[in-house]
């Protein structure tokens, strides 16, 4: 907490320490959400710029710093993914500067692991819940706080994600799971 207080007060060394302490959390979460090292690195910069700008708005009484940091990171990644799926109107109706970029070649690399592939095929909303639960090891309540979602929505999304992953893995890699009995 001292680190945060000192950073708030403009202590550059404290902010540097804060960055080095949490850079992996931000980068790795971004990588899991975006599948692309270059985009994860951009996310790392954008997230810490936002942290630097809005440290004053972080209220320790409303949750852990890491929960706040995860929230900024995941929201940034969700916005980034929304922009990535580019689409636009016929040329005559499109301001040229809005032409979006295409996903980078890194995201196209072949992925042999059926589980990783299934995770990547999840919708953004389900993927965010899966990353927070199974990577960040958050409880449903923490996920609810991070994503600003009702607890019931977290439950239903995680259940939907697990069902989707299970069906996807069973169809792409039969026998990958020990028992394939389908839920009744």
């Amino acid at each position, binding site marked *: 907490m001292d680190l945060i207080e000192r950073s708030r007060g403009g202590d550059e060394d404290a*902010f540097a320490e804060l*960055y080095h302490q949490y850079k992996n959390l931000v980068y790795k979460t971004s990588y899991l959400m975006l599948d692309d090292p270059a985009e994860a690195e951009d996310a790392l910069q954008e997230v810490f710029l936002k942290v630097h700008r809005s440290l004053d708005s972080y209220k320790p009484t409303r949750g852990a710093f890491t929960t706040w940091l995860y929230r900024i990171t995941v929201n940034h990644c969700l916005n980034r993914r929304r922009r990535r799926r580019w689409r636009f109107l016929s040329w005559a109706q499109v301001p*040229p500067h809005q*032409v979006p970029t295409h996903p980078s070649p890194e995201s196209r690399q072949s992925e042999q692991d059926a589980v990783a592939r299934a995770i990547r095929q999840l919708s953004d909303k389900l993927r965010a819940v899966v990353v927070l639960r199974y990577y960040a090891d958050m409880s449903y309540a923490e996920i609810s706080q991070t994503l600003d979602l009702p607890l019931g929505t977290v439950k239903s999304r995680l259940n939907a994600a*697990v069902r989707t992953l299970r069906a996807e893995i069973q169809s792409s890699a039969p026998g990958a799971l020990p028992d394939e009995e389908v839920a009744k």
Partner: protein
Amino acid sequence: MNCRETNDLLVDYLNKEVTPSQSRMVQAHLSECAACRRDLDALSALEDRVRRSLHGQAAQAVPSPEAWPRLQAALAGKNRSVVQSIQSLFTGGTLMRKLVLSSLLALALVFGVVIAVPSVRAQVREMIDMWYHFRFPERQSSVGVGWGGDSEAFPPYMPTYLPNGLDIALSGGSTAPGAEYWEFEFHPTPRRKGDDRFIRLIEGVGENVPGLPEGREVMVGDQPAVWTSDLEPRHEVTSDPPTPASAQVLSWYIGEVKIELVSNLPESEMIAVAESFVLMQEGRGDLPR
């Protein structure tokens, strides 16, 4: 508690997110139901694999040493963006000052956009690798799609028949590992109140494009196709209004291209649209001037 009720709670039970009474009921059912125990084991194994996969991917992901100096430079204002600069104009100050600044900014934007269009176009030309331009002579419309990837996009198929009033409204593409997609949407043009007809067209190529779903088998020309009302997230329309509940999906292949036609049109109309598909011939070209 029966199998279905138990099954609905198994993920939450594994994650220790059930109430004590729910936990007792699940345990009681599991003690006498071998099928649900196997299901629990399968879910547990799945969760372990998901955890291992995520941690394995994350272990290999390390930020570069350049990330910190780059952030320092940005913090020092060297990379201060125009947007941030404009935002800073509005922090503090009186309402009148903000109004004056807003007016000046609006004027500057109007002139800026008009003057800058050729240069903006030049930047776009550098940014994208290829430009695809498709024409619809019968409907006097066209679509242009910039493609910034490192390989050529596959040429899409498009319908030559559309019900009266529908025209292309959106186009784009996306990629995922082992899959490339074109996406097109057709809506009433111009939009008319109460007319919620739509067609969403998804064309995919690649080893990870999902195959034909389970559903009612029909024919599109001489090609086997599947009719289903089970919509996946990718089938949802991207614009307002949201996807009508009556939407259905017609899926089939033309060569290696998997086609999904999502629409609330009557079945006969959807088949007519599907049977009118031709390969787009315009293909790669320059950025339209």
